[in-house]
């Protein structure tokens, strides 16, 4: 058991009881603070450093060949806790030679930024690595409609991510070799 | 009618109007505020008489300190607007009002028309000159602060001390009344 030591508090001296020396010390501290370097970040001109794993606005990305990655499996719509994502699935037309092995692509993809909580579940759950929470954090608009990000806006925000394994190329290769599934 | 007369009429109207409205307003806070208006207007009248010191004391002591206390207590006790009183209380207050007003009228008439000692109050001051010397010279009574001080500490020394003693007695009384009585519990 820890031993409790009761410290005798020294009685305050006369100068301490007036509090004036302490006030003077305080004033000295605040005054010297006036000349220290400032920590303010002048926001629109200076931007904060965003760490690599930052969860910003969710975006849709394309693969290095500029092809739409999303296959509208709607897993993200299902997992989204605030139900911010709405996907209208559509079919990929047969004549699209680039993606002839892909059956579906989103006809419309909406993320409501008024509902989004930036949890990153959509990125985690996406089997096609098509949705990413990137470093963009500033989203504003004058109306509610403006803050619902449509498909083209999402692709514009997302851009192209370097992809390590060309999944569709592999799929195509497999299909050509005859063992598609 | 010149400018000063206009000012006098203005302040006098405010002083009287404030006083009357103070009596007739139902809410205590309004009454207190009308009283402040009345007091500040009286201070204005003093200024017109070039008695700046008196005017300032009027504002400092009455409007600034006493009325703040009044207001403070009205607010602390949360006194609401006065409702209808019983007829007996009405009768008493009406009688008191009439009595006070008639005394006021009589006194004013005495001051204006009679040469009784009250009306000669203004001649009290020259009496001060005869036996008060400052540096070998008579201190002529003026509106300056110094002549007030000199009068208070020479001719009116006794009344001041008596008044001070009265206030001291009142203060001691308040302290005794407001002191908590601590009873020792007997086992």
């Amino acid at each position, binding site marked *: 058991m820890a031993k409790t030591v009761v410290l005798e508090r020294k009685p305050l001296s006369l100068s301490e009881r007036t509090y004036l020396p302490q006030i003077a010390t305080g004033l000295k501290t605040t005054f010297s603070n006036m000349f220290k370097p400032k*920590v*303010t970040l002048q926001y629109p001109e200076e931007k904060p450093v965003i760490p690599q794993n930052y969860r910003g606005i969710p975006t849709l990305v394309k693969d290095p060949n500029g092809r739409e990655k999303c296959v509208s499996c709607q897993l993200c719509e299902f997992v989204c806790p605030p139900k911010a994502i709405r996907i209208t699935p559509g079919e990929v037309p047969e004549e699209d030679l680039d993606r002839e092995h892909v059956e579906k692509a989103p006809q419309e993809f909406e993320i409501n930024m008024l509902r989004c909580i930036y949890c990153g579940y959509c990125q985690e759950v996406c089997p096609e690595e098509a949705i990413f929470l990137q470093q963009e954090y500033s989203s504003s608009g004058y109306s509610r409609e403006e803050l619902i990000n449509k498909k083209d806006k999402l692709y514009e925000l997302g851009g192209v991510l370097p992809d390590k394994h060309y999944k569709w190329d592999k799929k195509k290769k497999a299909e050509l070799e005859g063992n598609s599934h | 009618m010149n400018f000063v007369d206009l000012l006098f009429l203005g302040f006098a109207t405010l002083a009287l109007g404030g006083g009357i409205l103070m009596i007739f307003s139902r809410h205590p806070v309004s009454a207190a505020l009308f009283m402040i208006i009345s007091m500040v207007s009286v201070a204005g009248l003093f200024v017109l008489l070039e008695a700046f010191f008196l005017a300032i*004391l009027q504002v400092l002591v009455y409007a*600034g300190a006493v009325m703040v206390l009044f*207001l403070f207590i009205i607010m602390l006790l949360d006194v609401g607007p006065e409702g209808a009183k019983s007829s007996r209380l009405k009768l008493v207050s009406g009688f008191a009002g009439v009595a006070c007003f008639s005394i006021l009228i009589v006194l004013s008439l005495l001051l204006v028309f009679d040469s009784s000692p009250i009306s000669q109050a203004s001649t009290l001051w020259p009496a001060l000159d005869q036996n008060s010397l400052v540096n070998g010279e008579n201190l002529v009574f003026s509106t300056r602060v110094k002549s007030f001080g000199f009068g208070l500490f020479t001719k009116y020394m006794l009344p001041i001390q008596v008044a001070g003693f009265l206030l001291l007695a009142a203060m001691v009384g308040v302290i005794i009344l407001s002191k908590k009585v601590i009873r020792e519990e007997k086992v």
Partner: protein
Amino acid sequence: MIEFMQSLEIWQILAIKIVFALMMIGAVMTMAGYSVLAERKVSALMQGRLGPNRTVLPIIGSVPIIGPFLQGLGIFQPLADGLKFLFKEEIVPGHVNKIYYYLAPIIALVPALTTMTVLPFGEFFTGAGETIPLMLADLDVGILFILAVSSLGVYGIVLAGWSSNSKYPFLGGIRSSAQMISYELAMGLSLLPIFLWVSKPGVEVSALSLVEIVNSQHQANWLLLVQPVSALIFLIALFAETNRLPFDMPESETDLVGGFHTEYGSFKFGIFFVAEYAHIVIGSAIFTIIFLGGWHFLPWMSDPWPANWVGTILGVGWFLTKTVGLIFFFIWIRWTLPRFRYDQVMDLGWTKLLPLALANLLFYIVLVTWLDQSAL
């Protein structure tokens, strides 16, 4: 000058006085506006921030070097703040007592502006070697006038608290009136030794005049050095009377939301705000006059400026410098000390400052009597 004044009709004198008064109001209100800016800027600097530096006027802001510099200082911020107060929506809560609710800000501002009438801020040298103090009204009981009128300022706060008809403003108003009554006493008592010290035996001129107090410090000790205890008590009481931290009982955001002006918004709140800062400006000016030698140069030194209009301007400038220094001190204290608890404020006022002021008064009564006796 005096003959010139006597030759005028009364309405002409009135017109001149009104023009002077408007100029003075303009000066004090500008200083009040810029002390708000100073408050924000100094607090920012003390907390490692930059403070307001965004507001800019179209033409002046585009001047190459000066524009950005002024913008960085936030010089245009008070204009923006004032306009904001003017154009905000006027909200009157349904439960307030309308008449007093509207009256309160006015009552708060008027005494703050009235005290400046007897405030001397410099001297004018006539050709004949005379000096005329620069002030609106040369009252021989100036300091009492200031004490009296500033004591009326409390009604604004009390009425605001009462008419708002809600808990926090009411508590703020009650606290404020108690605080004002308590500290007025110490303030008045701390000034008495000053008058005793300044009025010499045999001098006819009343030493209650602020001009006399300033001139007694010319080529002599500042009264701050002669009577440091009085200066300390007066300064503490001044903080309490202007409701500044560490004594901002009526406002105390942390326990009373906004205190007496919780229910006020837009321009009515703006008036309270300006009144508070006008009090600070005038309080600083009074402290400068009484304890820091007013427009005279350093203690024991004669004024280094010539006795003509240049001297007048330099003297007024020096006076303003001291006043601004004190305003800075007010702000500095605010961002250094925490707020007192209400009972601590009352305790300090009644059991510490009042006895100290009385002891100080007694000491100087004995000292002045002894000096007078030994001089005879």
